[in-house]
């Protein structure tokens, strides 16, 4: 906590802001990357979104008052950027009448052809199941299952109550379990 307060102080000082921001990037790049990657799957899309997240964080530094933790603030930006990206992607596909890659077969094709995915058949099926969830529910599941965030942290990031998050995660688990059962 002391470390974070020191970082916030250095970020608020124009003289040390740039160096402190570099430290911020170093510290949070991996957790943010994986948060985004589990949502959008593709490495290059993740890279674009991650850069946008840090650009927005840089531009929003003056508005960051330290009410929340830096991680909460950054995760929140990343969460919004992911949802916006997925929404734009869906609208682009609809407007161009492209094949919907978000279907189960589309996910399989995408992962099988992705050089940065080396999961086995079960992991492909797991990703198919996860991608079938609505975006916000998928986000809750990923945060809990892959990032192992506490519900209280997720509540701060997503602005949703702990009870609603627990219910959302429970429903997500049920849907994914049902997905596997219907494959048998």
């Amino acid at each position, binding site marked *: 906590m002391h470390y974070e307060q020191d970082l916030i102080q250095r970020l608020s000082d124009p003289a040390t802001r740039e160096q402190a921001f570099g430290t911020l990037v170093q510290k949070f*790049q991996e957790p943010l990357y994986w948060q985004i990657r589990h949502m959008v799957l593709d490495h290059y899309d993740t890279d674009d979104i991650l*850069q946008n997240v*840090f650009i927005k964080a840089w531009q929003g530094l003056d508005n960051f008052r330290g009410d929340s933790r830096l991680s909460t603030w950054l995760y929140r930006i990343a969460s919004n950027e992911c949802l916006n990206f997925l929404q734009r992607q869906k609208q682009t596909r609809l407007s161009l009448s492209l094949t919907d890659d978000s279907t189960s077969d589309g996910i399989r094709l995408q992962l099988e052809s992705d050089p940065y995915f080396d999961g086995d058949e*079960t992991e492909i099926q797991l990703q198919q199941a996860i991608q079938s969830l609505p975006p916000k529910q998928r986000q809750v599941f990923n945060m809990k299952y*892959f990032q192992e965030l506490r519900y209280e942290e997720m509540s701060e990031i997503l602005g949703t109550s702990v009870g609603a998050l627990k219910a959302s995660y429970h429903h997500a688990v049920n849907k*994914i379990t049902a997905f*596997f059962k219907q494959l048998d």
Partner: protein
Amino acid sequence: MPMTTDKLHTHRMMQTPPQGHSPFCVPDGYFASLQSRVMDSIKQTENRQKQATQTTTTCRTSSAQLVPARSRQGQRFWMRIAAAAIFTGIFSVVGTTLYRQHTDDTPLPTDNITSMSSITDIEYNDDLLDYAMLSNSDIAYYLTSAE
């Protein structure tokens, strides 16, 4: 049909957080170079924003004076009014000209116009103007006196 070992393992994974292996990977050296790329992106974004601001400032200073936004809106409004007035005027002139040409060609009806028998002798335009300048009481006077 019983679940395969793999699927059972995954099903068990649903109950406990995953450990270790993630099926996703990143290119070699990705995270090592990310910080410098992010800072470069930020600088590029700021430069683009500065250029956009400078371009706007150049456009403004090249004109005689700064025109506030509201004044510009007011000017556009009056320009629209002026354009509408011009078009209305043009249509009126054209329409009147065509109308006069048409009535010049057609003979004036002379039935039941006793007091105005001299109309055919005088120019129609003058009569029209005279008629237009008459008040209702004047017209009534002329009509009743003609009887």
